[in-house]
């Protein structure tokens, strides 16, 4: 299917006290209609910044530097003015965020906030917008939607607020939904429901979704394609099934081995794979692969030249010099000997 969003060689620098700091390097992604792309990585990987770059909601006060190309529905977003972006946001591209507790305006009712968004993008009356808002809430499976419209945010639970956020985001039937850690602040049972809602809405409306999370489990469950990010770079991308079944990049493998699973237990002598060291600061310049200092398989070339993308299977990309030699070595990573 023709991708609705094509990001090519995206780079981003943000202004700080002294000069600029590079946050993203050479990020390329595709998202197809009705598909969910998962962006996964640890804190500081640049996954959220990628999303904010698409909607141009960057924290640089207009002084940020954006390079590369973002094509959305055949149009180049990087060349759009703030005014054009305003019309696109909420109508064609919507976002939902991590903190449902702070993302709704505390002094307005839910109904007011929803109808404001609807009326911004559609020329209809407040009453019609209210009807639409009620339908939207019903479609995210909220009972007594009419009552909820009259509520203030503080009267709703976290899960309910996130539903309302999804309702607002989908109210103009956007072509792309960006969900930035939408379930991180929620309990697991609530999370399961919200994940289901997002997936259902995406299939029903044919909306493309960029789903950002640090949780490999969440990503593996609801995403069709996945991109793993590390320190502002994409290290591996492909179909979710391929990436999680045959991870090729040492970082992906290490990350997967670090997650506790139901099958492992300390009592049985299992060890989790702990990646030594810490994620490099974005301002730190590095000649080679940014994972090299922590990578058990790094060789001379890793420290001197940045890796280019290598196609390992159908649509499965890996950015690693040594993926072939590294792949078999990590294995299942059980027992003490596996800890590097």
């Amino acid at each position, binding site marked *: 299917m023709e991708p609705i969003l094509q990001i090519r060689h995206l780079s981003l620098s943000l202004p700080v006290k002294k000069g600029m700091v590079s946050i993203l390097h050479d990020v390329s992604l595709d998202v197809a209609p009705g598909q969910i792309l998962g962006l996964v990585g640890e804190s500081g990987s640049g996954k959220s910044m990628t999303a904010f770059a698409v*909607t141009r*909601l960057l924290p640089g006060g207009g002084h940020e530097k954006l390079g590369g190309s973002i094509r959305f529905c055949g149009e180049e977003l990087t060349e759009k003015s*703030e005014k054009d972006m*305003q*019309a*696109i*946001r*909420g*109508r064609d591209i*919507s*976002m939902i*965020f991590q*903190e449902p507790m*702070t*993302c*709704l*305006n*505390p*002094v*307005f009712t839910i109904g007011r906030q929803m109808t*404001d*968004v609807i009326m*911004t*993008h559609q020329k209809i009356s407040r009453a019609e917008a209210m009807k639409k808002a009620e339908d939207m809430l019903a479609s995210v499976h909220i009972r007594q939607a009419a009552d909820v419209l009259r509520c*203030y945010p*503080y009267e709703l639970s976290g899960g309910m607020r996130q539903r309302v*956020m999804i309702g*607002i*985001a989908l109210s103009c039937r956007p072509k792309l939904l960006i969900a930035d850690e939408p379930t991180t602040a929620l309990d697991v049972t609530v999370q399961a429901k919200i994940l289901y809602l997002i997936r259902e809405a995406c299939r029903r409306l044919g909306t493309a979704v960029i789903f950002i999370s640090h949780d490999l489990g969440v990503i593996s469950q609801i995403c069709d394609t996945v991109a793993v990010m590390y320190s502002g770079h994409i290290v591996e991308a492909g179909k979710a099934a391929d990436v999680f079944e045959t991870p090729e990049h040492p970082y992906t493998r290490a990350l997967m081995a670090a997650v506790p699973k139901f099958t492992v237990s300390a009592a049985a002598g299992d060890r989790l794979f702990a990646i030594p060291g810490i994620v490099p600061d974005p301002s730190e310049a590095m000649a080679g692969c940014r994972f090299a200092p922590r990578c058990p398989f790094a060789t001379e070339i890793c420290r001197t030249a940045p890796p280019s993308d290598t196609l390992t299977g159908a649509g499965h990309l890996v950015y690693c010099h040594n993926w072939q030699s590294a792949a078999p070595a990590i294995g299942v990573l059980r027992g003490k000997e596996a800890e590097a």
Partner: protein
Amino acid sequence: MISMHFLLKRLLHLVLVFFGVSVVTFCISHVIPGDPARMLVGPHASPETLAAARASLGLDQPIWTQYIQYMTGLFHGDMGLSIRTQMPVAGELAKYFPATLELTLAAMLIAVIFGIVLGVASAVHRDAWVDHVSRIISLVGVSMPLFWSGVIALILFYKVFPIFPASGRLDAFLSPPPPVTGLYIVDGLIAGQMDVVLSAIHHLILPAVCLAYVQLAIIARQVRSSMIDVLEQDYIRTARACGIPRRTIIYRYALKNALIPTVTLTGLTIGELLGGAVITETIFAWPGMGKYVMDSISFLDFPAIMGFTLVISFGYVLINTVVDIVYGILNPQIREEGER
């Protein structure tokens, strides 16, 4: 719209604070002075008057009996006789009250309106020239001694550029309008005497602006900082992500939230204005309570000073209760739960 519970709670609080205020004023007039009777009759009274005053104060009585007597007097509007004029203090204060009310109300309107405009302009155009100018105006304002700005204003706008009159509420050849509210501008409008209205406004401008300036500066700083704060909140980012136009975000979404702390500040502002009235009225020979108390101070006319203190404080407490209720109206969570 506001719960009964909330109103009741504020009213009970009001009663408690009134009680507290009366305790403090009682202490000031009966406990702190070495010889309260001497304070009451003034330094030049004869020994007989002093003895009579001792008896009438019941200084031989236990302290709580004295307090009850004090309160009974207050309930009957008895604040004692002025030493300077030998008239009941309550009557004198009532005579001067409208002038003070007119001045402080005018000053409050100026401070609040221009303070908010300046603060918002500053926050929205952060670090642009508007912001710099507004910040300089505010910085000078918060550092400006009220008694000095009044004198300078007189030198500038009475002596050097004779634009405004130096004293009084009306031109000498005009007689005050028939009293309804005691505010010349309002009464003049009611009586249809436009010459009185214009003259009253002409006389009011200079003292009101001088009195307002410091508070204007404080409000502008507060609005600026809370507006900047609000503009960085998650729900503003959400609104941006929904494509709500920038103007709507600033003037509807952010402003309402930013004004909530300003409402409380306005309550405090009124206190400062009432205190400042003593100085401003003296400088501009404005025939209000402030000038009355200033005249009393040079005679050490203690009953007059305490009467003034009581009236001003009760008024201040009353206004702050209104402010609290407005705060509740603006802030849905507090309105419902009655908590703060």
